[in-house]
């Protein structure tokens, strides 16, 4: 590990901490309908939207009504995207003449983008037309992110509500997320990326003669506009197959920095939005610090693990130590030399902590110890910053769990921000926090023990196990990154994707995991908010458990780690930990 590496990571964190309250307070103003700097510009468009869909900004919804709106909107989004992907062959903006994706792959990809997962069994430049990318996928990048943010805001309203059942209006929250937050930042981001050399064109792929004498197609496309939002909306689905390790997606050190800032920008800022809306910035910072500590541990372990290499590499004499001649040593397999170990592991930890899933290195090539971090980050339920909106509402479920256990230990019926946590909330919290781990375990077991699942697994031994666990951990938790060996779509290298086919079992199982993983915790969080909304707020006193100090942060970390560790320790043992401890090659 180098000083340079740590300085990069330290600088990144400083920027993140500085931006969090700025953007957080801005978003709080946006969602409470206060005037912000963009209001004069966007208010007419906002009003136009409301008229067009026939809603009124003031009319609130209770949690059931809010949830219905979310589900209806997501279902329509799903149908739209599925139709686009299935009719790609007859659509414009398809210079390479790609055919439509098979039904099973389309099912997986559609569920993936609507659930803000962006798991990709396909390779962007070998499967998707520009039309599908722009009108289909990029649009869902915006919409699914906005849905997550809207739901979070509704959950916060439930927590602060004084007996009213009104959680706000979904259509208003959705519109404001898009207009005031996602679009403006994405536009700025896209312009910046273009300035750094990210491609943005509707021309077809270049056909060039290489120095070696052969001919090669070089993929192009309207990438910059999609990359900004895939980072910002914790979507993560790359325009190109190798995501942000491709120079056209992530050309410079500066673009790398901005892209990785974009990953955590909104999830981090939303903690400040939360603090502002509940009337105590400290409450927001407590959650921010909890997330930050968990993230830092992840970055540290991953960085150290990659720098040390694996026992097997060691036994084979591959691991070089830093030699002072420019090589950092460590495990460089699957890493862009432009980024090196520090920047790669930092990105890997951040992209999996947030449910982003974009990568600038190949996670499949990580060592056991380095690779366990991305896995654990996802398996903790995507609450270490997590997805935009979804990360914080998931974290709030863990907060309630921690409050319940700790509250008992101070001798009071547990309460959070004055609201009593009773049987109904605990039931919903258990559903919201345990359904996904349960799902991940069961689907991994099914995939690994049946002949239909076996065809997707590339490697044997712990690596093959990790690939499978990672695939369902990533899809179930709506992350989208992958240990690349796991396949759901076979594409021969033929023009227009001729002869390609999906592996139905993996496509369906994964699509199912993503939809459950998205909507069950979402509905549980909304239901908790609905239940809390009707409760009185008990004033805090000296006997009240404080949720904004160091003790509580430690407790929250303990609860998150213990729940994940107890659930996945055996699986991790057989996957990355086992691999990290053995010299045997698989």
């Amino acid at each position: 590990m180098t000083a340079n590496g740590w300085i990069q990571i330290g600088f990144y964190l400083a920027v993140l901490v500085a931006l969090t309250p700025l953007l957080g307070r801005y978003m709080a103003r946006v969602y409470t309908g206060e005037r912000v700097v963009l209001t004069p510009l966007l208010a007419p468009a906002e009003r136009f939207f409301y008229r067009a869909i026939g809603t009124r900004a003031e009319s609130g919804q209770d949690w059931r009504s809010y949830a219905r709106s979310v589900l209806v909107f997501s279902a329509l989004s799903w149908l739209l995207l599925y139709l686009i992907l299935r009719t790609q062959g007859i659509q414009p903006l398809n210079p390479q003449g790609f055919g439509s994706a098979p039904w099973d792959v389309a099912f997986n990809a559609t569920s993936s983008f609507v659930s803000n997962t962006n798991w990709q069994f396909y390779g962007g430049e070998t499967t998707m037309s520009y039309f599908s990318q722009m009108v289909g996928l990029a649009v869902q990048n915006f919409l699914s992110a906005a849905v997550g943010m809207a739901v979070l805001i509704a959950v916060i309203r439930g927590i602060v509500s004084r007996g009213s059942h009104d959680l706000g209006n979904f259509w208003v929250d959705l519109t404001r997320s898009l207009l005031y937050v996602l679009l403006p930042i994405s536009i700025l981001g896209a312009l910046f990326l273009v300035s750094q050399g990210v491609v943005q064109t509707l021309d077809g792929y270049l056909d060039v003669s290489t120095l070696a004498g052969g001919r090669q197609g070089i993929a192009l496309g309207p990438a910059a506009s999609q990359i900004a939002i895939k980072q910002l909306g914790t979507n993560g689905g790359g325009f190109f197959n190798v995501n942000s390790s491709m120079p056209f997606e992530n050309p410079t050190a500066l673009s790398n920095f901005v892209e990785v800032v974009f990953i955590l920008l909104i999830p981090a800022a939303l903690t400040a939005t939360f603090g502002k809306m509940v009337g105590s910035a400290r409450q927001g910072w407590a959650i921010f610090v909890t997330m930050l500590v968990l993230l830092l541990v992840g970055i540290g372990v991953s960085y150290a693990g990659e720098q040390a290499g694996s026992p097997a590499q060691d036994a084979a004499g591959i691991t070089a130590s830093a030699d002072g001649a420019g090589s950092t040593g460590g495990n460089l397999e699957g890493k862009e030399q432009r980024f090196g170990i520090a920047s790669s592991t930092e990105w890997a930890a951040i992209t999996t902590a947030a449910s982003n899933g974009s990568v600038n290195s190949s996670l499949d090539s990580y060592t056991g110890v380095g690779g366990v971090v991305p896995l654990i980050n996802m398996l903790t339920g995507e609450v270490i910053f997590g997805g935009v909106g979804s990360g914080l509402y998931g974290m709030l479920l863990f907060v309630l769990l921690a409050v319940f256990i700790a509250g008992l230990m101070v001798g009071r019926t547990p309460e959070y921000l004055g609201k009593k946590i009773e049987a109904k909330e605990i039931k919903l919290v258990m559903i919201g926090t345990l359904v996904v781990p349960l799902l991940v375990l069961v689907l991994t077991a099914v995939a690994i023990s049946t002949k239909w699942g076996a065809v997707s697994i590339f490697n044997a031994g712990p690596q093959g196990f990790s690939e499978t666990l990672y695939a369902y951990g990533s899809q179930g938790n709506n992350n989208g990154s992958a240990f690349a060996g796991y396949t759901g779509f076979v594409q021969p290298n033929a023009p227009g994707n001729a002869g390609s086919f999906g592996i139905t079992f993996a496509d369906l199982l994964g699509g199912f995991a993503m939809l459950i993983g998205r909507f069950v915790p979402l509905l549980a969080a909304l239901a908790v908010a609905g239940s809390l909304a009707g409760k009185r707020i008990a004033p805090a006193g000296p006997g009240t458990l404080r949720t904004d100090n160091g003790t509580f942060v430690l407790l929250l970390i303990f609860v998150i780690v213990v729940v994940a560790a107890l659930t996945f320790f055996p699986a991790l043992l057989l996957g990355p930990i086992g691999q990290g401890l053995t010299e045997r090659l698989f």
Partner: protein
Amino acid sequence: MNEAAAPTTALGRSMVFAAAGASLRKLDPRVQVRNPVMFVVEVGAVVTTVAWLVQLFGGAPLGGGDEPAWFSFTVAFWLWLTVVFGNVAEALAEGRGKAQADSLRSARTEAVAHLLDGTELPASELKPGDVVVVEAGEGIPGDGTVIEGIASVDESAITGESAPVIRESGGDRSAVTGGTRVLSDRIVVEITQEPGASFLDRMIALVEGAARRKTPNEIALNILLAGLTLIFLAVVVTLRPFAEFADTDASIVTLVALLVALIPTTIGALLSAIGIAGMDRLVRRNVLALSGRAVEASGDIDVLLLDKTGTITLGNRQAAAFLPLRGVPEQELADAAQLASLTDETPEGRSIVVLAKEQHGIRERELAAPHATFVPFTAETRMSGVDIGGRRLRKGAGDAVRAWVEAEGGRAPAELDARLEEVSREGGTPLAVARDSQMLGVVHLKDVVKEGMRERFDQLRSMGIRTVMVTGDNRLTAAKIAAEAGVDDFLAEATPEAKLGLIRDQQAEGRLVAMTGDGTNDAPALAQADVGVAMNTGTQAAREAGNMVDLDSNPTKLIEIVEVGKQLLITRGALTTFSIANDVAKYFAILPAIFAATYALGAGGDMGDSFTSGPLDKLNLMNLGTPESAIISAIIFNALVIPMLVPLALRGVRYRPIGAAAMLRRNLLIYGLGGLVAPFLGIKLIDLVVHGVFGA
């Protein structure tokens, strides 16, 4: 009951034997299914027993693996023991109540009730509204209100207090309880209970735990435990295909052992015992909680309403001086005050009569009814007096008497206010005395604050509980006493409506309110309060309205009730944390045992006696002897920790009023960190015996 309560030093020998018997009866799956955690353990015990039997008759270990039959037997044996230990804990908690219930039951007389119309009826067939006559020496056949007569009653059967108490019609001492005994005189009682639902019946059901329903927090915790059990079930079930992918055998017995070690058996086994023991601790303090919900709520109390008189101050205020208005001879004031107080049986009234005699030599007089009409004190008028020989005498609260004088056509001189204020400023209670339309003067009643009250209130404050003193006194008097006693706030000139209003206001702000009361006019407030403790000496209405009854009728008991409520929650939280933290060590014991040979260099070997083959063996941090001894040690620890924690569950984790933050840190350190470390040591120790001594 006191005999039963006092010397039961936790676990007497006979009680343990009785509990052992009960614990075997509780193995019935229909009983166990109510507790999902322990039900899973019992199912696991059955499965491992079957696995052992199969092996005993020459079959292979179920689900692969090559463990010997004695291993399966040992696991099965300890799983059964785990269930039994859980049952013993519950039976012990119930057993302590049973002894009390038996002594209560002997008091439940199968007496014959003499109805007022002369017919006789078995006591068990009495209905509300029946009117019965009880003579000296007879048992009272049912709960009711005295509507005629006065009698001394022996209530030792329920209160444990041997001195007889007075029960009379009217006023706040009119309630009688079925099963108690009239010692002298004769009373007429109107029955208020439904058949079979008497106070005594409820009390028996309560101490036996029969009527115990799960409290809201207990239900929430049960959901949490069921959720954890479910996820661990998934962990263990999916571990089998995972292990197969890694070419490792994991037998059914091993997996069941892992499951039982992971699910929160410690808290699962002790949860109901904690609840029963909590109720029992209240009963020992002579408090009957009529609902478990109230016990839990008492831990959450934010505001405590305390009656000044009898709680904060010594019950009897003493008349200290007569302060006549200008132009009124002191003798005349003393005479009027004494006359107005002659029928006033309160200590205050008596003290006025005594003071008049001592200072002015005015003798008590017998007032014959024809000449005198007595006006009794009511909470509404807040004055009392007598009409005699054409004169109308009144004494009472300053503003009440002033209003009366003005209604009589007189007017109160400004000097009265000065006098009233003077007394109040000194912390006394002024009583105004008037004759017809003339204001005569003021009697100074002195209040004495009980010793040690300030410390008590400081303690409550550090628990996060605000104390509000409720008094009929005027603001000045109330303020003076409130300051002297150290309460946070006070409600002066309190009427029953004002009291009810105060409770509602506090509740609207989200606070939980507790209060004590005894009179019928307290009933609405008792019912409104989240925790209403009725004094056993109080009226039937008060006892029905409250959700707890204090048999000692001691208003400061509330502080102890709050402590019991908090202890209950803390004990649950502490044992839950302990139980979950334990899992880490159990993983480190069992998983290396299962996967010792997995991913070994060369061929994937199987689980043999050599415990040192694969990479995951490095996680055998405790350096346990063999895979078998590791698993058995974890299971034994898991079982033994239950009886070891039974005393803690029954006694409750100690509550200290040190503030929430300090308490959380303390309990996290003891039960969180302790729960993490203890099993590492415990399992290692057990393994030393199991492996070292028995050679497993």
